[in-house]
């Protein structure tokens, strides 16, 4: 890419908005996923009895909904990113590409 067009794009406020917004959302969701997952692993490593505690008087333990929660959260977090990106980032990107010509 020519240096001139790189400079033109980086000075476009829409580009700055796109980069800032996507980076903050992407890294934030990454941290959320890491915290959820490493939290789960920490329970496995340090607090096995909690995961093995039955819910109420049942056989099902807290470990089951917690494990399911990690699986579902992976899907939901990905969904949040995709919805946001489809709604906002694609529009911005299209405009930036148009304006860079």
């Amino acid at each position, binding site marked *: 890419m020519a240096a001139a067009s790189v400079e033109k794009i980086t000075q476009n406020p829409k580009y700055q908005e796109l980069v800032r917004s996507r980076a903050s959302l992407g890294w934030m969701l990454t941290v959320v996923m890491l915290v959820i997952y490493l939290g*789960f692993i920490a329970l496995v490593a340090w607090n096995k009895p909690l995961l*093995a505690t039955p819910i109420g008087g049942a056989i099902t333990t807290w470990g089951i909904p917690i494990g399911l929660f990690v699986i579902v959260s992976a899907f939901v977090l990905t969904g949040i990113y995709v919805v946001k990106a489809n709604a906002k980032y694609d529009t911005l990107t299209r405009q930036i590409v148009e304006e860079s010509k």
Partner: protein
Amino acid sequence: MSRLNALLLGACGALVSSAALADAVSGAVQKQATNWAAIGMFVAFVLLTLGITYWAARQTRSAAQFYTAGGGITGFQNGLAIAGDYMSAASFLGISGLVYLSGYDGLIYSVGWLVGWPVVTFLIAEPLRNLGKFTFADVASFRFSQTPIRVLAACGTLVTVAFYLIAQMVGAGKLIQLLFGMDYMWAVFIVGALMIIYVTFGGMVATTWVQIIKACLLLAGASFMAFMVLVKFGFSPEALFAKAVEVHPKTAANGVAGANPSAIMGPGSLISNPLSAISLGLALMFGTAGLPHILMRFFTVADAKAARKSVFYATGFIGYFYILTFIIGFGAITLVSTNPEFLTDPAKGLAAIKGGSNMAAIHLANAVGGNIFLGFISAVAFATILAVVSGLTLAGASAISHDLYATVVKKGKANEQDEIRISKMATVVLGVVAVVLGIVFENQNVAFMVGLAFSIAASCNFPVLLMSIFWSGMTTRGAVIGGFLGLISALVGVVLSPGVWEAALGNPKGSAPFPYDNPALFSMALAFGGIWLFSKLDTSKRAAEDRAGFLPQYVRSQTGIGAAGAASH
């Protein structure tokens, strides 16, 4: 039923837990009587996929077609193909077998194998599609000196692919021996031959469709099994767990059934050391983001938007599938371990399952759907292995032809047809090597190899890729030193770990120089630290060029301006 009993008789073996850790069926197995229903359905699958390969071969003329199906795969199709590439026979048979043996522990692995996907979505998928063309090395080497980074990436790719491939080949041989009653040697030959045919003739188009068909079959089969299990318990997971606790030997204390429910309803002894748990967790999570055959799939779609969508679908399919394997594992505890037909010695109960714990899902298929469904699931398990090895071989061949031949040897001036020819030759060579290694390792415990592949992917490919996309300060020298530090330390760490040093190499217990089962925590730190330190110290002229190249690269990674578009025609 008695016929089936005869079919499965003699299939006792020592295929116990470690296989689940590592995607492979390991240990000694005895040959089965021939299962014609399974063979019939498998032949149907092979004919269908060969038909697709013939169709794909007619449109695979250009390098873009061969490596990436011309970028003409839709987000949804690619999501299915990624799922098909990722859900190996061991995720299916290994995890359900692990749940069958230990209950909750199986879920810990499922979760680890899933959580890498969101990270791929948030950080990797779009820049990867915007910067690369055929291989992840295109991205990792984007602004750097080509030769050293391509060599590093090719090493990372080939080592990862080799270990993954050996585990799959040995697993395939054992599984087919068990399911179809075929000789180990023949089974490995058939897998090798089919994968060479798919990849050399059909390239990425055929590989993609093999993976899509396999993903649909596997999801449908697993859904049906989980549904039938839940039907038997009135759709009450509680009732399913209660029955499992009642019959599982681990939960019996002092001879009282179900006295100790937490033994299978909570984490067991699988992960005892906290550091091991975290290290394994990191390898599973970030290994996914460094698997070359998975990363390559992102180049098969038209643009960054489709790449993003495809990981979303894939995450959904894979997460759903892992929930199913959990239900299937518990279903097997209740329906397989209580049925003498599936046990070698009914007196011994659950542990005496015919063929070992990896057969839990297969026996369950028989228990809920009879012989025809058993044949279907057996054929699906074989198809699963074929789809995974095809993706692996294509990724390995691309590293040889695109990264080493076209870029390093020919300095980017290779003739396109020559490049395709080289990749086809590389496919044949890789296929032959895989068959030979499959035979050499027949009686070895290869369970650690998939774990090793994940560790290397997390410690070499992933750090170099991530840092090249996001860190402006990285230089060629830093990437190469850091990358090789990660690669070598992961390799050494695994060899010196208890799982290999003691279990596979036969050294005395407690003698392993490296105390943890998985090196990822340390090797990833070495890789990232090495990249950072040696980039910072790098004052060469090349380093200045590397840093200056970041801004244009970043603009392209964010906007896709200048990216290779879909070349489908």
